[in-house]
């Protein structure tokens, strides 16, 4: 479904990604793990057309590079950015209608999808008319995801959905992601909470300083001692730097 080949990304003249290659097969949940500044968020922003890139971003066989972000959304790629980016004055319902905007479909169909969103996240249904600014962190994250789903994406890019949430809420969010994936949605997930991310994902890539240093099934990555030390709270330091001279 998604295939990156030698993708580089730039912020101004700074190169944040160094020719990374990765893929996400239909129906898969794939996670990117890595330290702060490793290039995880940049990868998602590159796919969504938000940063300058070089290389290839093949989505269903089409190169997304150079397309405007709204066109990429129209093609079925939805992006839930880190920090949710909701409008505090707009209500839950407003956000969901906004999310459906790119589809340009009859109102009736939109209303049906809103019902489905409320079924997925009952807490949102109860707060349909509340401004987003009054929602809790967890509800805000649910709304951000529900809003992205309103575009009926085939590929969902999720940036740090666990950020700032209590563990119980994180688990609930991840359960929902898993459920969506079982219904056919493809997910590329960025997480600092590597343990949680690997538990929900099929496969993962480890990013460090803008480079992929390891790839594998979640089981393999969880079983990798260096991943354990660097990202699963069993040690300190990055993946490549953490163990120099340890032999």
């Amino acid at each position, binding site marked *: 479904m998604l*295939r990156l*080949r*030698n993708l580089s990304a730039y912020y101004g003249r700074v190169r944040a990604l*160094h*020719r*990374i*290659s*990765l*893929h996400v097969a239909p129906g898969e949940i794939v996670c990117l793990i890595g330290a702060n500044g490793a290039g995880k968020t940049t990868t998602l922003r590159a796919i969504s057309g938000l940063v300058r890139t070089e290389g290839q971003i093949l989505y269903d066989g089409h190169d997304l590079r150079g397309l405007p972000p709204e066109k990429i959304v129209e093609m079925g790629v939805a992006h839930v950015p880190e920090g949710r980016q909701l409008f505090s004055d707009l209500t839950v319902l407003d956000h969901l209608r906004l999310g459906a905007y790119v589809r340009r479909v009859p109102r009736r169909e939109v209303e049906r999808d809103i019902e489905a969103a409320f079924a997925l996240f009952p807490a949102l249904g109860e707060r349909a008319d509340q401004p987003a600014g009054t929602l809790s962190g967890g509800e805000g994250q649910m709304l951000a995801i529900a809003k992205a789903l309103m575009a009926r994406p085939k590929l969902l890019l999720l940036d740090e959905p666990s950020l700032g949430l209590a563990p119980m809420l994180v688990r609930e969010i991840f359960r929902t992601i898993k459920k969506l994936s079982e219904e056919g949605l493809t997910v590329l997930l960025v997480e600092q909470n590597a343990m949680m991310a690997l538990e929900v994902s099929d496969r993962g*890539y*480890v990013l*460090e300083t803008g*480079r*992929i*240093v*390891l*790839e*594998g099934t979640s089981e*393999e990555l969880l*079983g*990798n*001692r*260096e991943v354990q030390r660097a990202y699963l709270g069993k040690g300190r330091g990055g993946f*490549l730097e953490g*163990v120099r001279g*340890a*032999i």
Partner: protein
Amino acid sequence: MKAQMWNPEVETLPREEIEQLQLERLQSTLNRVYHRVPFYRQLFDEEGIVPEDITSLSDLANLPFTTKEDLRRNYPYGMFAVPLRDIVRLHSSTGTTGFPTVVGYTANDLRHWSELTARVLVAGGVGRDDIVQIAFDYGMFTGALGFHYGAELIGATVIPISGGNPERQIRIMKDFRTTGLLCTPSYALFLAEKMEEMGVSPAELSLRVGLFGAEPWSEEMRRQIEERMGISATDNYGLSEVMGPGVSGECEEKAGLHIAEDHFIPEVVDPKTGEVLPPGEQGELVLTTITKEALPLIRYRTGDITRLIYDPCPCGRTHARMERVSGRTDDMIIIRGVNVFPSQVESVLMAIEGTTPHYQLVVDRSGVLDELEVWVEVGEEIFSDEIRKLEALEREVRDALEGVLGISVRVRLVEPKTLERTSGKAKRVIERRRSEL
């Protein structure tokens, strides 16, 4: 009937998906070795290469080779890409060609290894209901333990008999109703010989399949083993430096060994110039490991002579095949400028009535001239016979060998069972020219 596969999804992956996977894994492997292994850091720096210069599989050709010599120089742990505490197993190469080398495995490396030997076993006809007798030497050699865990993963019953004691091998085979035999092809032939000696016929055994590897063997040898043991025999390939057995194995088509391309990238190069050869051309196999954590190797010169086949295989597997190894670059003897492989001699002997596939090549030098003498064991029935017949046989062998090799050869017939038998790798070449080099 559909071919049996251990991991059908991966083993039939479309070519472009294999290549995407290979590129991803190659790039992450390069990033790791560049940061982790001083040897590679230095090697790449010397060539002015950084990992991100490699943007396609064909760029691989721009990277320097890794040789057995490099492994020796970094003995024992210098090439490891993880700290020693992450290593859960150590093996050692057999050291038949010199100083031994050490191979380390992480837990994930072992998991992959089992998966890959399981693929080879299933391709060779082993299933969960089989009883496999592993007659490779257990210990530091990778052959036995590599297959051991793969067979257990499948759910087969494993008899870890190890090498040696042929009478016991045959007794166990009979009593335990062994259905699959794993050993070197020369040892299989030796067991066949032993069976005949003990008066055990294949019909008394439950043996169905044999998976043989660790040394080059010929099609003729396969035919003999199959006939004398009443089994279907397949070839498999691996080398301890890159993992052990499981690198490649034949399917039921017996037309080349499928390489686990999701774990290794194969190339064939000209052994002299190091230039990459197009698919189908014969040369030295070079392997790059793309999933190994403990001991990743970039463009490792295997020393094994083969060719790569990318044509689709009727079995449905999409992974490239390598032709059965026809020899080793370091087994290749150059006699008066002509390349000679022991396997060529073997093919000739197999076709001649009265000889056995037990042979040795003795290379010597008289004055400035290289000389090749081939020692061949003859069958029991011949040796007791008259001298004239022996002379005729000697002539027949010599003429046939000279016809195939294109050089003059001396042939010496030796008595049955006088050449050394081993459950390890058979020693085919005795080099006596060394002192003058």
